[in-house]
């Protein structure tokens, strides 16, 4: 218990510092980054969407589709292990912007084109992923 509570802030610290400093590849210092995929090939930037990057081999891959205001796929409360690399693929039939609260990562959605939201689940808690314009909650991420 106590070891975990110590480890969490320590792990998160370099990430937060990197996040403050700018958006340039904090992955280099990321201890838990997946090693199976080539480290040189465009590691997804954790603060923006990368519509064409293939999903990481390790980590959690989630998919949601939005059509006519209805959300299908991995909706509802989705548990994610702390520290995991999470990839959410969002396909919407309308232009919008997806926003993950707390982590403050955004993805621009174009009609019909799948967009990816990639981030490391380093902050424990429960977070909503919502569409900014429509106000629809796509899923609720439970990081623990």
């Amino acid at each position: 218990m106590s070891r975990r509570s110590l480890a969490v802030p320590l792990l998160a610290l370099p990430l937060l510092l990197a996040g403050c400093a700018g958006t340039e590849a904090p992955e280099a210092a990321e201890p838990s980054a997946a090693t199976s995929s080539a480290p040189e090939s465009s590691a997804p930037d954790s603060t923006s969407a990368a519509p064409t990057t293939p999903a990481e081999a390790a980590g959690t891959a989630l998919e949601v589709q939005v059509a006519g205001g209805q959300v299908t796929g991995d909706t509802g409360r989705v548990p994610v292990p702390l520290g995991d690399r999470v990839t959410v693929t969002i396909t919407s039939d309308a232009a919008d912007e997806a926003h993950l609260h707390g982590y403050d990562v955004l993805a621009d959605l174009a009609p019909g084109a799948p967009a990816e939201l990639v981030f490391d689940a380093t902050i424990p808690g429960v977070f909503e992923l919502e569409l900014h314009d429509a106000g629809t909650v796509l899923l609720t991420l439970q990081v623990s």
Partner: protein
Amino acid sequence: MTLLAHGVGSRTDLPIPLGLALYGAGAAILISFAALLLFWRTPRLGGPDGGRPLPGGVQRFVDSAATRRLLQAVALALLVLVVAAAVAGPAETRRNLAPWVLYVTFWVGLVPASLLLGPVWRVVNPLRLLHAVLRPVVRTAPGADRLPALGLWPAAVSLVVFLWFELVFPGRAEPGTVAAFLVGYTVVHTALALWFGEGWFARGDGFEVYSALVARLSPWARRADGRLVARNPLANASATPETPGLAAVVVVLLGSTAFDGLSRTAWWQSGPGAANDSLSGTVGLAGSIALVAALYLVGTRLSGRLAGQPVAVQPARYAASVIPIALGYTVAHYFSLLLLDGQTTWILASNPFGTPGVDLFGTYGNVVDLTAVSPDTIAYVQVGGVVAGHVAGVTLAHERALLSERHARASDQLPLVVVMVLFTVGGLGLLFGF
């Protein structure tokens, strides 16, 4: 824009571990029944005249009109600033100061402030200054005679209105909503104070009554002769006068916090509250308050009947004993919000109007550190708060029973204690997320 259940916020707490929930519930039940058997047999917390007087200098400073008017003027200036920031600041909730000040720093922060310092909002309330300025214009307060009969019922209504805006109204986090609420609250309560006299604030201003209620568990009190004293917080709570409507205020606070917890559960979000609209929220809030009210009325009345006392006076008699339970719920639900999302207020205060280049405190570029408090700490504080509130509640109810009848049988208190156990186990269940 859809936002998390409580007015604003970027995250909610993880469900507490099952083991911790069960330990907490077990402890609450054990302590309650041990208390009935082992507690003192005569009243011992002391009445409204107990306590150690504070130094005269402290009392003169706290009671001086200059201190109060100065603090009220500062609060009024901040109120104007927040409304201006809501209207003229960034349109986006997460960059606008106003929602974070109202829902997090003020509303949640009022609890620790009142717990540590006493009824602070009574001293600082900016509406009291507005009323003092406008009073000479009106001269008489036509409704002053009718005010005492209303008790604290106006405050219960005032709190329900605020809580509906905070927890239910879909546009609750919009800066425009916050501006409209603050202006509306100011106009309505200042006008009512002009009609009913200055006494209105202590009975009808929900924020002031809330602060005074929490302060009942602070170590500071005022004796009947006006002297400020320091005393055991439990003695302080025990000396709470039996005002009509006090039970309603406590029930509203408890029920609304329960609804806030309920609306965070996966069950609510995918079931009855899936629509996330005014209707489901209003029904949920009203239902939660009604359920708490029903349980409380049944528990107190049944206890009164067993003791052979008049049944009608019981709910008012025991209202003060539910204050710590409501406080425990509040700590459990909003502790992490204040410490984590509360950081946003200090970041945005550095540039209230979102003017490019302005950074008054050098904090505008900061990012909220959502890992500042670990999930383990949050879970322990949540369960600890709920269980401590429960123990204090049972203790106060026991003292009240002895005060009403010197040789009260412990078994007469059973129905009320069972209801308190239900509140606590229900509260832990909400934290666990069922």
